[in-house]
Structure formats: C-alpha cells, structure tokens
C-alpha cells in the first residue's frame, strides 16, 4: 500500500515541528529562564511522528523523561508544554512538573515521568482499562533501550501478553543510556526485540531513520492491536544528537565518537524526507517554506506566552497534594508558613 501524500506531509510536518521546538528550547536555554533539566529529542523525531500518526486522541500514551516529541506527536498542546518548562501556571502541570512531567489528557497523553521504566506498567494499566471497555483503542508506551534493563518492563510485558491487552510498546533504541553505551548494559549482540518475542509479544523492528518503513511498521502493529491481536513490541534504531540532558552537543566528552554522530546525522530523516517530498512527490518548496514559517510563528507565540505568563501563586507550593474531598478539610498535614 502506497503512502499517500497527505500522510507524508503530515509526517514531515510533525517531525519538522518537533525539531524546531527542540531547537528553540536549546537556543534559549542559556537565557536561564527554563530552570529545569531538559532531555531533547533532536534526532529521534521520526519514531514519535510515525507512531503518533497512527494514534487517535482516544488512544492513550505515556512516556519518559525524553517526552517532548511523544507529547507533540500525540497532539499535546505546544503552548502548555513550553509554559510548563518555564514553570508557569499556564503549563500543562501548572509548573509543578517541568519538562520531564508532561500531560495532556484531552488528547490521551496521560503522563510522562522521570523515573526510568516508571510509566511502563501504568501504560499497561491504561491498556487494561481499554480492554475492559472494549473499543479497539490502544495504549502506547514509549520507552528507551535503558528502560529494558528495569525489571518492571518484563513484569509489565508479561501481564500485557498474559491478558492480551491492547498495548503498544515502542522502544527507541538510541544506543545510550546517559553516557553508557549499549554494550556496557546489555550483551552487545543480543536483541531487545528477541526477548520481547520470547516473552510472547508480537514484535517488529526497524530502522527508525527510514520514515516510511517505520510508518508501515507502526501501522501494521497498531492495526493488529486494534483487532484484538494483543500487545506488540516495536524496536526502532535511532540516535540522539544532543547531550543526554541539556541543550548542547557533547561528543567532545568522548563517550561516543564524533564519527558515529556524523554518520547518523548524515541520514537525518527530516532532511531525507524533505528531499524526498520535494523530489519524488513534487511538493513545492513554497509549501514547505510556508509550513516552516507557520511552525516558527507558532513556536514564537508559545515562547512569548510562556515568558509572559505568571508563575503559579505561592500557595500552590504547599497545597494540592490531595484531590479535594471533605476528608481534606480534616487534613492537618503541615502546610508551610504560607498558610499560617
């Protein structure tokens, strides 16, 4: 089945938008107004884009510390995300979570957290809820190659397989966990997807830098889940371009080679796809230029709003730990000096 041009333009748009958002964050990080750790997705946009393209707002999604791309690809509000990174009350968590904790329930993005592996069973629980309701919806869990080292991954996969839950595991294998290469953490030749297969999941794997092939993989997997085929596990090879945490490049640190980085960068899916669209698909450069300008404009507005929005009121630092019920009135935990 030939991908049609709308889908392709959509994939390109999503990748472009994520790239530009991440670069804008990187550029402005030195202003010291985003006072929170950021884990950028530059270089990994394509996986988020192809998976996100196949999910509806009614589908669920959870993610990790490196969630910007997933959040945007699932339809999360850009303004709410940037404001969150600025710690503003208009942020998607009212400034309580920061870059590593994103949520947009309106589009089914149910949360990302900063503990490796932490959202994996939660995504399975969301999958359980979908199975109980029974409507062909999917719960998508993004995870890194490092998360596969956490026991909870196996526990969760076992439960998903055992109960045939509509869960999609998307493993972005970018070869590193912080500064630790794969071979320091897992046997170099072993394949993550082979383990998932032995655990009983339907598996697919592929080159995350091949956008159309990856998109096919995501489509097949998600279609099979919707039809009740049980959980799928996707592993995509991909690569992070910037430092693990923060806005800079860090190849000078020596934990990976500049050459390795350059070889991935040379295959930049965004640029490859741009060439493909302009060349093979005869999309005019004007159309793409317009798209870029629109994205730039949208980002400009998002930062503008974030910068000008107020911080949450001080009282929010010491309240809100319980969902308010009558029992709360009764609650006399220590509320800080602000409330006294």
């Amino acid at each position, binding site marked *: 089945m030939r991908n049609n041009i709308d889908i392709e333009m959509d994939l390109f748009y999503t990748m472009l938008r994520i790239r530009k958002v991440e670069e804008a964050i990187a550029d402005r990080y030195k202003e010291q107004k985003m006072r929170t750790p950021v884990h950028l997705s530059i270089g990994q946009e394509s996986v988020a884009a192809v998976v996100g393209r196949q999910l509806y707002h009614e589908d669920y999604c959870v993610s990790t510390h490196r969630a910007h791309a997933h959040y945007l690809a699932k339809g999360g509000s850009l303004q709410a995300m940037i404001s969150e990174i600025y710690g503003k009350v208009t942020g998607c968590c009212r400034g309580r979570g920061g870059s590593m904790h994103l949520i947009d329930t309106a589009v089914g993005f149910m949360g990302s957290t900063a503990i490796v592996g*932490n*959202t994996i*069973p939660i995504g399975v*629980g969301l999958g359980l*809820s979908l199975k109980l309701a029974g409507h062909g919806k999917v719960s998508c869990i993004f995870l890194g190659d490092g998360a596969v080292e956490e026991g909870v991954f196996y*526990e969760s996969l076992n439960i998903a397989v055992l109960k045939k839950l509509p869960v999609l595991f998307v493993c972005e294998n970018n070869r590193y966990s912080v500064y630790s290469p794969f071979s320091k953490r897992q046997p170099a030749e072993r394949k993550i997807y082979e383990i998932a297969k032995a655990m009983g999941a339907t598996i697919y794997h592929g080159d995350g830098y091949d956008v159309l092939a990856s998109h096919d993989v995501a489509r097949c997997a998600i279609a099979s889940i919707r039809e009740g085929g049980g959980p799928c596990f996707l592993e995509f090879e991909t690569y992070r371009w910037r430092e693990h945490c923060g806005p800079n490049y860090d190849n000078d640190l020596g934990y990976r080679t500049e050459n390795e980085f350059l070889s991935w960068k040379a295959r930049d899916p965004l640029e490859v796809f741009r060439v493909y669209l302009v060349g093979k698909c005869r999309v005019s450069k004007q159309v793409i230029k317009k798209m870029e300008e629109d994205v730039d404009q949208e980002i400009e507005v998002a930062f503008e709003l974030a910068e000008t929005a107020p911080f949450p009121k001080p009282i929010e630092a010491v309240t809100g730990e319980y*969902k308010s019920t009558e*029992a709360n009135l*009764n609650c006399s935990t220590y509320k800080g000096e602000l409330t006294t």
Partner: protein
Amino acid sequence: MMQNMTYGAAINTAMHMAMELDPNVLCFGLGVDDPKHIFGTTAGLQEKFGEQRVFDMPTSENAITGVGIGASLAGYRPVMTHQRLDFFLLAMDQLVNAAAKWYYMFGGQVSVPIVIRLIIGRGWGQGPTHSQNLQAWFSHIPGLKVVMPASPADAKGLLLESIFDDNPVLFLEHRWLHDSEGLVPSGDYRVPIGKARIVREGEDITLVSMSYMTIEAIRAASYLEKQGISCEIIDLRTVKPIDWNAIFASVHKTKKLIVLDTGVTTGSIAGEIIARICMECFSILTRPPVRIALPDNPEPMSFGLTKHYYPSNESIVRGITSMLSVDHDLSVTVESPVLHDVPGDWFKGPF
C-alpha cells in the same frame, strides 16, 4: 441494623457493596480468587462480578501497582491486595513516584483513586520478612492516605470510604484482627478518613492507638479500671491524615499521653504524635509523654523471642502505672490468650 461479624467478613461485605455500587471498582492481586480468598476477604467476588473485575495477578508487585494506577487514571477504582506488606516493598517506586504524586505533579488534572490493602503484623512465627509494620513510611509521603482500622465496623466503613476517595489509600489490616468479631452496621456504611474514634472515655490518661494495639489498649484499660484508673482510648483509625483535634481535646482533659504503635519505635507514627503534641500542647502535659512500640530490631521468629519483642497489654499497664506513679495489683490478670504468639487460642498456624 447491626450484624455481628468478623473483621475479615466486614472487609468482604464492603468489597461486595463497593463493587455493586460502582461498576468501575476492580479487585485484583495475588490470590484474590484462590480457595483461601485472602483470609476470606475476597470470597464470592469473582463469582458475582466476573473475571474481568476480579482477578489474580502474576507475582509482580511493582507492575501490578502500576497497572492499578493506569486503570485508575482511566476512571477505574482498583482495590489491590498484598498478603503481606513486606512484599509491597517491591512497589515503592510506583507508590511514591507515581501514585502519591500524580495528582499534584500533573497540576491536579487526574488523580489516582486506588486502594492498596496490605496485611501487617504477625501471623505465627513469621519472622523478619513477613511481619513488618511500615505505616510510618506511607504517612511520610505527601499525597497518600493511610488507614488502619481496628474493629470490624471500622474495617467496613473505612474500606468503603477508601474505595470512593479520589486519592491513593493504603488500607492496613493487622493479621491478628481478621478473626476478631464485632457489630457492623449494614448497608452503605462509611467512616470518614481522618476521623479518630474515642473507644473509651476516661479521665486519667490518654492512650492513642491504632489497629491491633487498640485491642491491647482496651485489655489494659479494662484491667486498670478495676484498679481505679480511668483511661481514655483514642483509636486513630486513620494515621494519615491524623485527627489532631481529637488528640488535642483528650490531652487537654487528661494532661497525660501514651501513644501505642504496631511499628518499630524510632521514626514511628507514635513519635510523630508525641512531637506534635509537645509542640502544640506544650504547657498542657503534666508528665513526659511515652510511646510504646516495637524495639528497633528486626522481628524475630522464635516463640522464645516474640514474647519479649512485642509489647502487650502488660507493657501498657506498666507504662500507665509508672507514669501515674501508682502500684498495681498484679493478681488481677489481664485477659489474654494462653500463649503470647497467637491472637486467640484457636489459632493453629501455619500462616
């Protein structure tokens, strides 16, 4: 209407009622549908509500907690069970980093209305890895509520309230309580979270207790009554948040405080209560407050050691009489089972 039933049966009744009231209530955990039904507490649920809502799980404490959190984010109200609190230590990441914080950390958008039932205390020679009482841990974590009912009625009322609370609630059941009996109101009976119960009014001293220690407190108080000492017993029922007003009021009356805890001494909830009372009712107390809790030692298994490890009603009597500087007549015996390591003479092990 009231009915006499065991603590275990009261929990079972509450589960049936909750699952009837709300189709979003789920019940899962290791063994919930097995022939023993978690000391009878989950009996009949699967037959009545089906395998979709009541189901066994693999031995994966961390993941099943996450599964419960995920389901609760989607609107379900899961009630999870662990046969021993000790096993639940595997799930602290999900409890603390996810369940407890989700509501606050995500700006108050989605909460985690999950109930986690944990069995604490001792069975019978369970030893160091099957009898921990870590309520102090849970009560230290913002965002969690922690209930520790002592009576069948409170077990029912607090379980129903916990299930319909929108926050994560730890529901701690002491193993020595499941077979204790008491009158339980029928119907949709609720006991508010955060409200203590005055089990017994008294003038001379305030005993604050929780869970199984309330049973020992009552034994001690009944005994001391015959010696002319009048104890007020406050059963906390909820240990987070604590009903401070109830304690303040009682201390203002008796001016003396002993706090009982089923956990080890250092860092106990009993200590928290003493600290706060001393800070807020500083000039009220006429004697140094006392806490009676387990020594700072792992729980031993041996029959020969548990006797000296667990405080009993006698420890409480000694604590009170020494605080009041009175002698007591040891010829009047405190009513207790024959052997120190069982909740009643009927208990024959193995678990």
